């Protein structure tokens, strides 16, 4: 309060400007000192690795080797399937579920607490559990199938289609709570009056969703799709710990194949080339996202 009154008096209003002019040099030095750590980090650990990575990946020979590798086309398809289904299924479910969690009452609150568990747990613990849960011989799922129907369940991780599906399942399981929470926050920001007005006009639940919620959340949904796509593109752990890239290297994605080529095969140039082939997707996404995030008020 005292502050406001001081600002209101004309005498002090001119003072800061004068003072700012007076200590301009010192301020500039302080500002410089304040931003130096971040600039140093950015140059040493972002700019330098990007430059070095591009240099490593600039050898045409590694691209010839990469495109000649029969694992590579499979990996590209896997990556696209993973992004398409993993990201879109997850976000669609999250959007719908966020509506459910808007309900009032202790039960919904409790359910939300339980529902957040996958996000609060470390990814590694969860993915390892899912790996063993889906074991074809002794996993929980196939044991359940055996107890109920007395038939052998499918070999989830020994069949490339099922294994990729399992990875996508693991990804959705882990990240669904996070995106549901984001959409929940988005829904809460919508004014209640809009829904009340729709009620007065006799709108049904579906109509309220399609005519009020959806148009207002479309922009946010789009940003979330892009961000989630980028994060999923760089996701290493789901594939590494659920399918391990197997069976027979059939479920690798670009992120895991890059690491495999660089470290297991010991060829960093090949590994970097593998990762860099994602740039045609990554660059437009990154540019669009940077524009959107700079404009928007809400940071995710």
């Amino acid at each position: 309060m005292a502050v406001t009154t001081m600002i209101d008096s004309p005498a002090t209003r001119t003072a800061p400007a004068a003072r700012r002019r007076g200590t301009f040099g010192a301020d500039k030095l302080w500002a410089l000192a304040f931003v130096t750590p971040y600039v140093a980090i950015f140059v040493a650990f972002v700019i330098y690795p990007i430059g070095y990575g591009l240099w490593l990946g600039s050898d045409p020979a590694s691209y010839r080797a990469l495109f000649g590798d029969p694992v590579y086309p499979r990996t590209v398809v896997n990556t696209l399937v993973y992004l398409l289904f993993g990201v879109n299924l997850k976000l669609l479910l999250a959007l719908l579920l966020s509506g459910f969690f808007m309900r009032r009452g202790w039960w919904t609150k409790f359910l939300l607490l339980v529902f957040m568990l996958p996000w609060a747990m470390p990814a590694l613990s969860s993915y390892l559990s899912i790996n063993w849960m889906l074991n074809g011989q002794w996993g929980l799922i196939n044991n359940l199938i055996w107890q109920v129907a007395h038939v052998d369940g499918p070999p989830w991780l020994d069949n490339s289609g099922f294994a990729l599906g399992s990875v996508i399942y693991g990804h959705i399981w882990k990240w669904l709570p996070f995106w549901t929470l984001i959409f929940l926050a988005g829904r809460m920001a919508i004014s209640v009056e809009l829904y009340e007005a729709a009620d007065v006009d006799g709108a049904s639940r579906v109509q309220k969703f399609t005519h009020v919620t959806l148009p207002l959340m479309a922009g946010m949904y789009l940003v979330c799709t892009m961000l989630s796509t980028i994060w999923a593109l760089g996701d290493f752990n789901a594939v590494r710990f659920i399918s391990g890239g197997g069976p027979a290297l059939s479920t690798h994605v670009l992120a895991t194949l890059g690491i495999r080529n660089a470290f297991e095969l010991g060829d960093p140039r090949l590994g970097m080339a593998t990762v860099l082939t994602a740039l045609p997707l990554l660059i437009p996404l990154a540019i669009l996202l940077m524009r959107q995030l700079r404009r928007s008020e809400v940071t995710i």
Partner: protein
Amino acid sequence: MTARRRGRAIDRIGVTLLSVLLLVWTLLPIYNIIRVSMQEKEEVLSTSVYPIAPSSHAFSVVFHQAFWLLETFWNQMSNSFFIGVVVALLTLTIGSLTSFAISRMRIRSGWMLTNAALLTYVIPLSFLAIPFYGIMGKYGLTNNPLAVIAVEVTFATPYAIFIFQQYGASIPLELDEAARIDGASPPQIFFRIYLPLMAPALVAIGTYALLLSWNEYLYAFLLLSGGKVVTVPVTLGKFLVGDEAPWNYLMAAAIIYAIPPLLIYYGFRRKMSGGLTMGGIKG
């Protein structure tokens, strides 16, 4: 009247069904990890769906580090903890200094720093792993926790800068100006006005950075090759390399490893709310 009652009944059935579905979906892998951790070795390889003879054997093995992969388990836990705390402190320091300079001192090149942070934010972490490994070799930091700390601070700071700027926008600039009139220097404003008022955001981001680093696997795996510096996730990953993984030990260790983040998340959930729940863990 009856139509409304019927509508309510349908609503109730729907809620019940969806609740059951959500609980099963969420708890299945969690049930599995607990189930396996309570089984003996022979029982792990059986068709049981629940622990027939629940035992704490696996937990006591982890506790007493009585398995060769778990020989230094508690040391690894403290490594994970140490790295997490350092990452959190550095992220808070660098993030708050930078956002103070950008939004409170209004430096002219602030937009460039914001863009730099945005750029870092939209680059997938794993894509820089290969050059990073090479660079850390050049810096002589292989098998050194500093290398992992550097990566994690680099990737946690941009998010810190966004949140601090957003949160700081609610603190009136007039406060700073008033302090200047009283002759305060920028560091004094930073320490006496900015930081105390930013406390909720600092708690949220500190937790975020701690969890990010606790959960990080790839860089720890690449940069910490062995010996006393290894963190827990690296060891958990090693279990999969052998043919006959002792899944009960692995699951017990994975549960112990999951407890601190769960406590932190559910303990700080309220402090993280108010727009700050928006913070994700970068995958």
